């Protein structure tokens, strides 16, 4: 943590802030080309019907963890991507904004997604997967993530 009196030296020396600065430097409008459609038919392991993403209906209750010295304030970004991934252009813009937020407000950003690959991973964001067949299971899964991360804000 840099603390209230920020200076150039403190900014450059703070590992967490530089982590987010590094993420900012990865910002790009170009993304890797996904060639799954081309290769899947050649992969003996690939199945026509994909497996589902599951979450046990009776997953244990998670008590929110108490504050400790390791913790930094964290903000969750809950992506509305239940049905399809966000377009790469949108992700690029959002990624730079969230990295800027993390740097300026000295917090961590955690992206919550319903997709296997939300698009934020290539920049270096921490991305958590929301699972569950029902709304109730998905909410339970989110509770686990809230308990683990202790989000101050969910966007």
């Amino acid at each position: 943590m840099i603390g209230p009196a920020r200076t150039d030296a403190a900014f450059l020396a703070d590992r967490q802030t530089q982590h987010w600065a590094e993420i900012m430097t990865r910002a790009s409008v170009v993304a890797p080309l996904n060639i799954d459609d081309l290769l899947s038919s050649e992969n003996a392991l690939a199945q026509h019907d994909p497996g589902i993403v599951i979450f046990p209906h009776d997953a244990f209750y998670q008590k929110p963890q108490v504050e400790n010295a390791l913790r930094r304030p964290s903000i969750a970004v809950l992506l509305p991507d239940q049905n399809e991934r966000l377009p790469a252009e949108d992700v690029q813009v959002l990624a730079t904004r969230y990295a800027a937020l993390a740097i300026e407000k000295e917090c961590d950003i955690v992206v919550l997604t319903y997709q296997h690959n939300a698009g934020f991973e290539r920049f270096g964001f921490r991305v958590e997967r929301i699972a569950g067949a029902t709304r109730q299971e998905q909410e339970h899964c989110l509770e686990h993530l809230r308990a683990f991360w202790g989000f101050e804000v969910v966007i």
Partner: protein
Amino acid sequence: MIFCETGGHDTTAFDNLVVFVSQLRGCGIPAVISAKSLPDDLRPSHQFDAAAFLSNVAMNSGDTLVLLDGHKIDVDGAAKLRELAKGAEINCLIYGNFETRQSEITASARVAYALNVQPKVIVPAGCDPLPPSNIAVFGAPLRQEKRVKPVVGLFAPDISTSDARAQLRTLAMSRAFDVEIITTGSAKKDWIEAEGHDIPAWHLGELLPRALAPRFDLVTMFGPPHVWLRTQMLLANLSLQGTPIIDTTPKQCWSSVCPDIVTGPSRVADLSAWLEKVILPKLSELRTATRESDLAKAFAIPEDLRELRPTVAKARKVSDQSSGPVLFMPTNGVGLGHAKRCSLIADAMRDQATSRFAAFPSCTGMLTASGFATMPLVSRSEHRAPHENDLVNFGRLSPLAKDSSAIVFDGGYVFDSVMRAAADQALPSIWIRRGLWQAGQNNQVALDRQKTFSRIVVPTEAFDELNGRRETAQNVHYVGPIVQESRQSASQTAKLRKKLAAKVGLTGKKLVVTMLGGGVAADRRAQINAICAHMETRSDVAHLLVVWPTATTDPGWFHYRNTRVVQSVHASVLIPIADLFISAIGYNSFHEAIYAHTPTIFVPQMAGFMDDQRARGLAAADRELALLIEPWEMLSLTKSIDDCLGDRGVQLRENLRKMNLPETGTKAAAGHILEYVA
């Protein structure tokens, strides 16, 4: 609902509470502990113990509270109960050790004030040979796994001298039974420091008594009866599951007061022959006798608690657990090797068993694309204590394990979540344990926790010098390399390359595929830039830079004219069709390249927590099957690329074709797992 609380404030009081609730659950009583009662400063092991029983549901009128250590309830404790009850009328049973009638009245009054109902005070009946306990001691045994050899649990043996330890080592050499030590945390540490891991050692806090008991077919008691609730509940579970208890104390302090406990020799040196000649031949009869003994009957759940069972029995599915799906849990390690290996094994089992996965988010796409239902786990974070994510994962994994037939773990570090998920359900557990640890690597946790697995399957490396000394333990099985082999013909390859060229818009005739790893263990941006820049000098090359869908990328990579950055969960398909493969040396990519006969330049990723990638690369390079280039040899790297795209590549491919590689072990590994599946 049935809530359980303790009047005590210390760690022992909370430990007793958790042990008690786990036993209640085992008896079909859906007891919970209010999450508000969980102390904030609990050690991780206690957090894991309590995890299955925590609830944030509020108390309601008509609910029941079982209060342990009722004699310790003070004004603050009563206020805490009142806060939990929030005015609801809660039935209450109090267990306690009330020295005077007045102390009982005081405790009752405090609880009545908190819960608006007069509590029922219970002083538990004692059970010889155990010292009196102020908490009811009762058994709730799990099923026991069938074993080739019985396991004898040595309870609190003397390990203080080298002579004593030597006698235990001699005892462990028996061919008729296996031995495991059960002792205190500090004694276990001393034992491992002196004797290593050849004889497994448990400390009583490692698993809940209900999960620990099924591991033993016989138990010998070296110390006197103990007042600690964990010990007492363990004894109750052992008795009810029919594990004969043998008294080897010099003063016969168990068997002299309880005829159902067998008197054995007090000298360890005499124990082996006595067990083999006297006990083992009639083990089956002894088990029945133990189950039906007065001791076992004394450990039946007391009436007051039995009445807490739901009157309308929930339609509890009584299914044959062995017919459930196999649950795979690969760790994510540095790359995706563990998950890929598991998916290959699960694929080989597809006709005979259903498989599902619990995996980290980087692997879920690949696993679902392979048709497997997958539950995402939560990775570690440097901003959270090391056990916190595993606690979350335990809360997901354990319920999933409940109706599984077996749990298969693939990884280097055996997490608490995996160990406990299997043990809490008495589930057969298999560890796919890849070898090639680095010299001097700290693998103490792995060595200690291999005792928890029913079976260990070791996928061997293709080259002999990479395979360590073979262990002789009966539950360790070696199989050939687990690798995905290419099934493409030359014409299929040509067709795919044509489609690929069209898709990525590259015209170079020579296909170079680069996969330098996920960047977790080492930053490979410099090497990748060196490769991409060099490819710009070669108009005959189409260069695919393959990144995993969840890997980080560098914007600079996208601007090279004959490089395309691509991602796919099916990336292995590219290896056999490449003219040159530039790769890290993880188990999977190494064997896929070797078995596909693809000329490869290997660049090792090395970190303290990884396998020995350099040794793998050397084994191939020494045989002239591939090139090994160190990460700092960037000039050599570009020169080697040119060499391999010329005559050197032809030679490497020829050498690979001539190489007699071991039979792959995927089917054999699947067979070892299927033995546990109905």
